[in-house]
């Protein structure tokens, strides 16, 4: 570009500047990893739906016959749901950080926040003891997930052809250890939820989560772990996440609220991530 002074910026120079800008924009657009961003949106949407629907199922106003004797403290089980969801948000931050070009979706964020309003309304109804059809819970949980899925679909449409999968490299040592520890942490969370002193144990589990969050910017932090993970580890996380949520619902809403179910359930919750950690070392 020869002319950069406003005193002598002629039409040709202005045209060249505009062309350079358009080229830069096109190159930036082509550098976006739409496939990863789409997967990320779908993952967030799915986990948000699971989290919100399970939360409402735990604390929701249900017919007395549907609830077990131990379900009176549904709120205390919500900690079991909160832990994996907060962990997921940190892991997702790591995946976002790995993407060198990100799209910001302020409008989508606003729409999602607005779509969360019904969740707040239903939460208040639950607190007030107002009964409503059970299916409303699913609709309320689906409301914020829907715009995320729509956005994920839009991103997926822009994704180019799938590239051949690169050979996997073994997980590094901190990631391997943290993946295993995360599995054990989830397992312990599910296990302890079956015991009467869970309220106290829950405090300890939350402190452990705070310690994990404090490591966020280090190599041992969850964002770093999320950026290191590939499909097998994410699949392991998804399995542990769903098993932990299911265990929380079973413990809170059925008669199977026994230590044995908690211990067996906790082991099952831990297995996918522990296996992923072990397999990650052998890749």
């Amino acid at each position, binding site marked *: *570009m020869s002319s*950069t002074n406003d005193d002598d910026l002629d039409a040709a120079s202005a*045209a060249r500047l505009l062309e350079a800008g358009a080229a830069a924009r096109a190159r930036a657009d082509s550098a976006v990893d739409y496939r990863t961003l789409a997967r990320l949106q779908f993952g967030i949407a799915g986990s948000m739906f699971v989290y919100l629907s399970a939360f409402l199922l735990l604390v929701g106003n249900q017919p007395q016959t549907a609830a077990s004797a131990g379900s009176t403290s549904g709120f205390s089980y919500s900690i079991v749901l909160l832990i994996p969801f907060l962990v997921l948000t940190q892991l997702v931050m790591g995946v976002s950080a790995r993407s060198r070009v990100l799209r910001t979706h302020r409008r989508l964020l606003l729409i999602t926040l607005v779509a969360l309003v019904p969740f707040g309304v239903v939460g208040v109804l639950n607190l007030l003891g107002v009964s409503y059809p059970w299916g409303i819970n699913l609709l309320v949980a689906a409301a914020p997930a829907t715009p995320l899925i729509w956005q994920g679909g839009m991103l997926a449409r822009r994704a180019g052809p799938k590239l051949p999968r690169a050979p996997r490299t073994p997980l590094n040592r901190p990631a391997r250890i943290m993946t295993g520890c995360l599995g054990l942490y989830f397992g312990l969370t599910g296990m302890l939820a079956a015991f009467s002193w869970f309220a106290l144990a829950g405090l300890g589990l939350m402190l452990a989560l705070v310690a994990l969050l404090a490591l966020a910017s280090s190599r041992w932090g969850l964002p770093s772990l999320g950026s290191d993970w590939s499909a097998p580890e994410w699949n392991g996380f998804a399995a542990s996440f769903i098993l932990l949520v299911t265990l929380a619902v079973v413990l809170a809403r059925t008669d199977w609220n026994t230590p044995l179910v908690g211990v067996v359930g906790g082991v099952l919750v831990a297995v996918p991530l522990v296996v992923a950690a072990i397999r990650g070392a052998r890749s």
Partner: protein
Amino acid sequence: MTNASRRHPRHELDPALLTPLRFSLMAALGTDTEIDFATLRHLLETDDSALSKAIATLSTAGYVRVRKGYVANRPRTWLRASPAGQAAMRIHVAALQAIVGE
């Protein structure tokens, strides 16, 4: 016609956006994109020093926002256009288009 509409479009040009590098940087960021430093350097085919200077100028003008973080324990810097930068870019592009159209 008002006085403003009679003004030559060059008066609307923003000095902070007049170099090709700074203009291209803002164009690459657009309104909804956050790009890390190394990728910007590659996209704009420039070097660390020139890009750092461009970012410093735009940052001083309040046109870009810088976010620093870590990926796998390595520092990484992301940039995105601020609302003021997006507005300035809109005006600047309109002025350039007006000059081209004259």
